[in-house]
Structures are given as structure tokens and as C-alpha cells.
């Protein structure tokens, strides 16, 4: 385990003569926001990496003790701001669990469609910024071009493009506008060939493979020990996805949907789509696999959305009424983890019977995923650090809250 | 019209002044990177002198090997070995005395040596102007191959004259030149030797890891 450094100046005095102590961040182009990595390097070789967090702390959890659950929804938007829909969903579900409320059928499929669109949007950013980390700019803009289309769809349903506050306790703020589903399907149709472009530009690119294959290899045991989740965990070949393995109140949402968890089993990924083969340089659990899992999850999410659209069209009941602001919460506590794009996002709420929760907490997947960098980056080169940290795809807003 | 300024002399003096001034600056500087920088300027000015003399090959060589290669390696070495950011070097007064003695002795040898070469003195400007036309790199390469450049303008090769059919030998005169050993092989041996030394030095200096 890497040790926490309180004052880097103290460290600088006891480093050996040929070592250098470098601050990577919080103002650094490749640290995805305000992450600060303290590197101890011997030339280009990194001997120790210590992540320093807290530069984006906004006391969101404390604020949650002073707001009713629906008022706290905008604060969850700003946790993982790249997948705000999934954050909304996590908080909404935990309150619904506390209240033992079940959303209507139509609202359930609507949430699936929105959550999976959010996952695609998030993974597109992960892909594009990973390209940036490796020094290629163009995939980033290709990714954002498609993400913008998703944001257009989101804008139509809720009026916002980044912080939606759309999924809320009890349902969603508004139903889909008319014609939205056709637009959504059209988007999915045109995304299929674009994904092949991404594969050509990054996944199968010789330099990309050189930069990612066998870099930052994480064994399944290590990934579990560090509490990693999401694509980071599945990239190590652990077959675990809360949409299938989670609590009933969450898996009920995906009840009846056909999907296979994207994780390598017996040397193979589930193949429901044409995508490139694993290069021979790649080892299970390396940066390349983590990237690849995300790319496959985009295809998986597209499939889920298509299923959701079919089911949504068949459903006849409403999309669910948002909970009243003055409604009192039942006394007790509830904790629920959902499968956000970056991993298991947990929300915890304790209520003393008032409308305002007594305690609101969030468990961030990025936090656990980030903390393994100290282990993964030991002995790597400086250039591998963006390659590893980028493949973990952390969002500081979620870690610092 | 007017010959107010004789340009070759002007540039010679300019380059020579720069070379000397920065050579002195190397001595006076205490910061090792600045020393390296001054040395580069001094060596570049020397390269300029070579170009001025029409020895373009030597000038380019000077730029490439001394200014380019050696200085980069020197800086590299300084950066790799220095433990503080800006390394300061102080010269002891005893060292100054020794340096002056040795420098003065070298100068005393070099100056008479330079003036003792008869070809280097008494040239008029027309002769100087013609120098740059004949100084090409080719003789150097040919010399390495064993061709005596300085003897090529001899009217008859002995063995050519010995040939019974003079007309045929005129068509292919070059075939008759006996192949001389040249210096290329020796040159190669020396360079390979240097390479071996470099590899050996790198091997000896490499960091030893525990496992």
C-alpha cells in the first residue's frame, strides 16, 4: 500500500539523490479534473504514486441532511457529472426502497432507456478522454459528436444537457415527448457503424495496443480486494454486474431484459456483435481490457435500449408521479448500490421520520477504483500513468462529492 | 569600386573574436550549463571560421560532432549526474596558475608552428579567393580509399606508360591505377574500436539491480 503524504516537502528531503518528487495535478491536462498524483520518480520510472483528493469537495452529503430527497437530486447530478442520469437513479431508488414504493411499468422501462443512454454517453467520454491521455485528439471529438446527440435527446426530455435532475423519487419529471422514441432509434442505428470507426481508430490501432496492452495489469483478486467495480472489475474478468447480481429492487428494473454481463469467461467475451478480437499482447486485467469492456458495454446498452423501447411502447400505465416535497419519510435506514457507468454507486439514507433525511451518504465507485493506482503504477513509466489512470476512468466530482 | 571593407577578413575577425570571447566566458562562468552554452557558441564560431576558409566539410563536421553531439551528451551527463539544480563550479587559485602555465605553453608552441608553414603566409587576396573553389570534401574520402589526391595531376602513371597499347589505356585510364590499400580499413577498425569502448563503458556504468 502506498502511504499518504501530508507534506510533500518533508518527503523531498528524505528522497535518495537520484529520485525526483513530482506533482501531477491538480492542474494537469490528463488528470481528469482536479486529481493530484504525487509521483516519486527515478528518471522516467515511477517508483510510487500517491493520489491526493479533496480539491472538489462541496459537502454535498452534509447538504443532503438539510434538504428533502427530491431537492437533493440536483446535488447527485454533480457527483458523476458525466453520468448524471445514473446518479439521479441511484438516489431515487434508495428513497423508493426506504418508502417501499414500486414505480409503474412504463416508468421502469423509461428509466432503463435513460440510464442506458447515460451509460453510453459516459463511456463515450471515457473513450474520448482516454484517447487524449494517449496523445491522440481526434477520437475525443468523434466521441463528443455522438455524445452531443445523446445530450440532444436528453435535452428534449428534460431541458438540460449536463445536470438533468430528470429521474426523481417516484418516477421521472416528465414523460418522453412525442416522436422521441423514433429519434432515439435513429440515433442507435447510426451509432452502429460509428463504433466500428472507434475500433479502427483506437481499439485495434497498433500504437494504442502498444500503449495499453499489459499496462496496469490487475488480477481479479486484486480488483476485488481493492473494492473495484464496474468496467474496472469486469476488465479483470470478474463476472459481476449489479444489473444482474444486485438487490431485487434494482434488478427488478431489468426484469425480463436479455443481456449478458461483459466479462471475459474462459478466454472469450460474450459475442452478440461483430467486434475486434483481443490482441495477443493484451493480458486480462490490463488497460486495454478495461477499455474494451467499456466499448462492449456501449453495444450492450444499445441492445438494452432497443428492448426498453419495445417494452415502453407496449406499456399502458403512467411513468410515475414524483414524490411530494412535504411527504414524510418512514423511520429507518436504507442502502442500495446501483450499476453506474463507473461502477457500483451506493447511496445510504437514514430517516428519523421527517421529510428531511437524518443522514445522506454516497459510496463512490471512482474512489475505490482510483485507489488502486498506487499499486498499479509502481514501477511504470511516467507515460503509463495517464494510460492507467485514464483506463480507470475516475470522475473527481464523485470522489470528492 | 571602393574596397572599403574586405569581407573575408571582417568575418574572420568577427568569428575569431566571438570564439575567443566565449572561450574566456567558459573559463569565467561558474554555472556548468552556462559554461556548456558558452562552449557551444565558441565552437560554432570556430565552425564559422572553417566555412569561411572554404573547408565546408570540416565546418559541418565541427557543427555535428562538437556542437551537436558532444554538447548534447555533455548536457545530458550534467543533467543525469547533478544533484542540485544549478551546479556551481569554483576554480581554485592554484588551478588558475596551472591553467595559465599550460595554456601559455600551448600557445607558445602553436603560434610559431602556425607561422612556420610557408604556404600559410604571404598569400594575396586573389589566391585566397581561389582557395574556396578547390576545397572539397572529395579528397578526404578519396584519401580514405587510398587515392593520393595530391599526385593525381602527374602526367603519366608509370604502369600506364608501360602498356604496349597506349590508345586503349587512354580509353580506360582508371583501370590501370594500382589499387592502394588506403586508410579506410584502419579508419573502420578505429571506429569499431571506439564503439566497443562506448558499449563497454555503458555496460560498466549501468545501474545494478538487486535481482
Amino acid at each position, binding site marked *: 500500500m502506498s502511504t499518504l503524504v501530508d507534506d510533500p516537502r518533508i518527503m523531498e528531503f528524505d528522497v535518495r539523490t537520484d529520485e525526483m518528487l513530482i506533482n501531477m495535478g491538480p492542474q494537469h491536462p490528463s488528470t481528469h479534473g482536479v486529481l493530484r498524483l504525487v509521483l516519486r520518480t527515478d528518471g522516467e520510472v515511477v517508483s510510487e504514486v500517491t493520489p491526493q483528493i479533496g480539491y472538489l469537495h462541496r459537502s454535498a452529503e452534509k447538504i443532503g441532511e438539510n434538504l428533502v430527497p427530491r431537492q437533493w437530486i440536483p446535488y447527485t447530478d454533480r457527483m458523476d457529472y458525466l453520468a448524471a442520469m445514473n446518479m439521479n437513479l441511484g438516489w431515487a431508488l434508495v428513497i423508493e426502497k426506504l418508502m417501499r414504493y414500486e414505480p409503474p411499468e412504463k416508468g421502469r422501462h423509461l428509466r432503463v432507456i435513460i440510464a442506458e443512454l447515460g451509460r453510453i454517453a459516459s463511456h463515450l467520454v471515457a473513450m474520448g478522454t482516454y484517447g487524449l491521455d494517449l496523445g491522440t485528439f*481526434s477520437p475525443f*471529438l468523434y466521441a463528443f459528436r455522438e455524445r452531443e446527440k445523446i445530450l440532444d435527446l436528453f435535452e428534449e426530455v428534460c431541458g438540460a444537457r449536463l445536470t438533468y435532475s430528470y429521474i426523481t423519487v417516484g418516477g421521472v419529471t416528465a414523460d418522453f415527448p412525442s416522436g422521441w422514441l423514433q429519434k432515439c432509434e435513429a440515433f442507435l442505428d447510426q451509432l452502429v457503424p460509428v463504433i466500428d470507426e472507434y475500433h479502427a481508430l483506437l481499439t485495434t490501432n497498433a500504437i*494504442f495496443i502498444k500503449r495499453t496492452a499489459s499496462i496496469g495489469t490487475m488480477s481479479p483478486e486484486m480488483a476485488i480486494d481493492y473494492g473495484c467495480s464496474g468496467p474496472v472489475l469486469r476488465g479483470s474478468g470478474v463476472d459481476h454486474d449489479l444489473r444482474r447480481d444486485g438487490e431485487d429492487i434494482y434488478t427488478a428494473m431489468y426484469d425480463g431484459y436479455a443481456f449478458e454481463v461483459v466479462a471475459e469467461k474462459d478466454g472469450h467475451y460474450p459475442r452478440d456483435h461483430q467486434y475486434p478480437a483481443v490482441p495477443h499482447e493484451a493480458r486480462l486485467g490490463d488497460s486495454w481490457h478495461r477499455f474494451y469492456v467499456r466499448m462492449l458495454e456501449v453495444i450492450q446498452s444499445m441492445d438494452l435500449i432497443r428492448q426498453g423501447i419495445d417494452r415502453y411502447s407496449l406499456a399502458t400505465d403512467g411513468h410515475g408521479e414524483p414524490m411530494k416535497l412535504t411527504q414524510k419519510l418512514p423511520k429507518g435506514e436504507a442502502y442500495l448500490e446501483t450499476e453506474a457507468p463507473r461502477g457500483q454507486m451506493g447511496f445510504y439514507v437514514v430517516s428519523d421520520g421527517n421529510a428531511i433525511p437524518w443522514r445522506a451518504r454516497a459510496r463512490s465507485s471512482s474512489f475505490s477504483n482510483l485507489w488502486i493506482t498506487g499499486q498499479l503504477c509502481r514501477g511504470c513509466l511516467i507515460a503509463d500513468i495517464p494510460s492507467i489512470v485514464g483506463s480507470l476512468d475516475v470522475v473527481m466530482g464523485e470522489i470528492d462529492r | 569600386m571602393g574596397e*572599403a571593407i574586405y569581407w573575408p577578413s571582417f568575418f574572420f575577425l568577427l568569428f575569431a573574436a566571438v570564439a575567443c570571447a566565449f572561450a574566456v566566458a567558459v573559463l569565467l562562468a561558474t554555472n556548468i550549463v552556462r559554461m556548456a552554452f558558452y562552449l557551444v557558441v565558441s565552437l560554432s564560431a570556430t565552425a564559422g571560421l572553417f566555412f569561411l576558409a572554404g573547408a565546408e566539410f570540416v565546418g*559541418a563536421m565541427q557543427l555535428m560532432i562538437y556542437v*551537436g553531439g558532444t554538447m*548534447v551528451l555533455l548536457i545530458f551527463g550534467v543533467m543525469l549526474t547533478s544533484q542540485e539544480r544549478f551546479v556551481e563550479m569554483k576554480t581554485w587559485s592554484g588551478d588558475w596558475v596551472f591553467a595559465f602555465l599550460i595554456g601559455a605553453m600551448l600557445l607558445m608552441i602553436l603560434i610559431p608552428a602556425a607561422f612556420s608553414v610557408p604556404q600559410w603566409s604571404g598569400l594575396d587576396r586573389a589566391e585566397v579567393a581561389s582557395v574556396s573553389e578547390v576545397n572539397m570534401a*572529395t579528397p578526404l574520402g578519396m584519401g580514405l580509399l587510398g587515392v593520393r589526391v595530391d599526385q593525381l595531376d602527374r602526367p603519366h602513371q608509370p604502369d600506364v606508360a608501360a602498356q604496349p597499347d597506349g590508345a586503349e589505356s*587512354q580509353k580506360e585510364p582508371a583501370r590501370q591505377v594500382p589499387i592502394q590499400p588506403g586508410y579506410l580499413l584502419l579508419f573502420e577498425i578505429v571506429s569499431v574500436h571506439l564503439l566497443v569502448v562506448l558499449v563497454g563503458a555503458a555496460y560498466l556504468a549501468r545501474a545494478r539491480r538487486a535481482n
Partner: protein
Amino acid sequence: MALYLSNFMWSWLAYTIAALVHVVLILSLVAGGALLFIWLERKISGRIQDRLGPTRVGGKFGWLQTLADGLKLLTKEDLMPEGADRMLFRLAPYISFAASLAAYIAIPFAGGAYLLGAAPWVAQHVNVGVFFVLAVLGLEVFGTILAGYSSASKWSLFGAMREAAQVVSYEVPLGMCVVVPVLIAGSMDLSLIGDRQAGLFTNWLIFHDPFTFIAFWVYLTCATASVNRAPFDLAEAESELVAGFHTEYSGLRWSFFFMAEYGSMLSVSLLAVILFLGAWHGPLPIATWLGLTAEHGAIAMNLGKLLGLINLLLKAVVGVSVMIWVRWTLPRLRIDQVITTCLKYCTPIAAGMLLGATLWQYQFPSRSFFGLTEVPQAVYHLREGPQQAVQNSGSSPESREGTDVPEDEIATVNHPARRGGQVSASDTIPQESIARLR
């Protein structure tokens, strides 16, 4: 030029004006080139990335965008870190730029010294031009290293170290690739190498034999690496080293590094074109067909040269565009992979190509286009000319004054060593030795 001017004015003024004209021409080429290439880079990257690129400044295509950028850079605050070595920090960008600029001194822009009948368009004719350009281009790294060292920033230092390691190692295969055309042309004189490729595109040295063909691509790779362009842009690797060696630079000083970068890009492209891609000769000898040669007077000749200049610059711009295209497509290599590419692939391949080209030249000395065509008569003169002169003049040195050379041998008349009105012995050496080797 200076000699011509000195008929009208004092010689010192003539020399000064002649020198100034060259300086201004080269400076405007480099600065204009940088203006064009930065615009081109923005435009090409825009198109590659499904954007338009600049569209507003200066009309429809945003072609004045670079100028606007330059004005913005002028107004930026000139920052200097507190712990910096102030003198070296100030000097470093100018050293980079000066080195990049100096390479243009020896690059000929239109030749025809031998075929068209007059001196090439070059600021200073250097008979070891190839060597000189390589040597000077290698100096650019010095500015980078000084910048990295004097910035008092660890990121800058890392960038400088990477640059030094990279440039020093890539000079080896680069030099070897350059030697291949030098070997075929039998000269280090850039204008001579260029004119060796006159006529149809089949005479271009890239098509001379399979080895030169591969050597060209190795040269392109190494040249990209030596001017620090992606995927070898490790010295300024944004995602790793913030901005590498120029992290601490701002404003005009920063822009000098970029002028140097674009200047070097153009000069290595020019070198590639001169060495491999027919220099100032187009794929078809249109200038000759149109009669724009020395036989038809000075105006025709200079028009032909102008055509050659345009030809050369167009090809060089294509070369730069390829570098831009590559930059916006590929991810960046890691430092160890860059060095591996150099030492394990480029250097052995370049060495092999050098050996192969030597053997090919030995086996098919006067063939071109992969051995399929003859080297045309005009080009043949170029190489054989002086030797024929020797044969014509017999063995007596007195008669070798160049007066009895047949008129059709323009090549011989204009040989640089003859311009001084005398023939040196060294002229005859390469040809004799070539003949002996056969």
C-alpha cells in the same frame, strides 16, 4: 549577385544588399511557411475531426487565423518562473529558431546548375549541403534542452531529457537514410543530387531501386521523430508532461518554439523532396518541353527555375501535410517504444537499405526506376561529364582548361569547380574511382 551589383555601387554595399536579399527571402519563407502550416494544421485537423476549422478571420477559409493568433501571442504577458536561469531562458527559443533557420542557408530551391545552365537558387552553395543541413538541424535540440533546463520546472526538464534522447538516437538512422541518395548521386551537393533526378518521374531516387524506396519511408519516420511531431512528440507530450520543454513559456517566446518546429518540418520535407522525390523536377519534364532551359536565354531559364521552385515547394507542402495528417490520427508512443523503434527497427533497416543500395548501384550502375530504365543521356552527362572531359583532353594537364569541351556538355562547363576558370584535380577523382570500381 553581389558581383553583379558591385558593378554599380561600392562592393560592401553590394555584399550587404545581396546578403540581405537572401536573409529576407529565407526569413519570409520560414515565417510565411509557419503562417501557412499553422493554418493548414488547423484546417486539416478540423477536417479530420469532422469540424470546419477556422472560418472567420480573413474571409471564407479563415486564412488569417494564424495572424490573429500571432497578434494574440504578442499581447500575452511574458512570464518567467522565479527560479529560472534568466539568460538561458530568454535565449533558448531564439537558439531553436536560429538553428531551424540556418538549415535553409544550404537548401537549394531551384537547381538546374547542370541541366539548365546556371547556378542553383540557394543562399549559400555548400558542396557538402546534405551534411550541413543535417548538422544544423541537429542543433535545434540545443535550444530545447536549454529551455527545459533553465525553466526550473520538472516537467520542462523531463521534456528536454526526452528530446535529447530522442534526437540523438534518431540522427543515426536519419543520417543513414540520407546517405543512400548521396551514394547514388555520388555527391553531397544538394543541387547535384536534385539534378540527378531530372526528366521523368522514373528518375526520382525513391524509385531508383527497392532499397531507396524503403529508405524513403524510414527517412520519413525518422524525420518526423527528429522534428518532434506526433506520434513522436514526447518532448511536449501534453497528457504526460503538461507541455514538456515549453511548459513555462508564454507569448512571443513560446511562438518562437513553434516557428522553429514548423521551420524544421518544412526543412526536413524539403530535404526529403530533394533527396528522394525529384527535387525541383516535376513528374514530367514540362519545363524542358516548354523550352524553359538555358539554351533559350536567361528569361526562359529563370522561368523554368521558377517552375522548379513551385514544384519543390508544392511537394514539400505535401510532405508537411502528411506529418499533420499523421499527427491528428495516431496516439503517442512511449519513450521506450520510441527508442526501440529507432534502435531496433529504423537503424537496422536503414543500415540494410544502405548496404542494399550499394550493391544495387554496383550491379546496375546506370539503371533507374528499379532497374527498368536507363539513366537518360542528360543525366548521364552529369556524372560522366568531367571524366569525358579528361578523356577528351588527353593526359596532358595543360590542355585541360575546359575550352575544348563539346558544347552539348553543359554539365561539364558549369561544374562548380570550373566556375573559377580553373579545374582542380579533385574533379576527376570520383569518376575515376567509379570507373575503377566497375
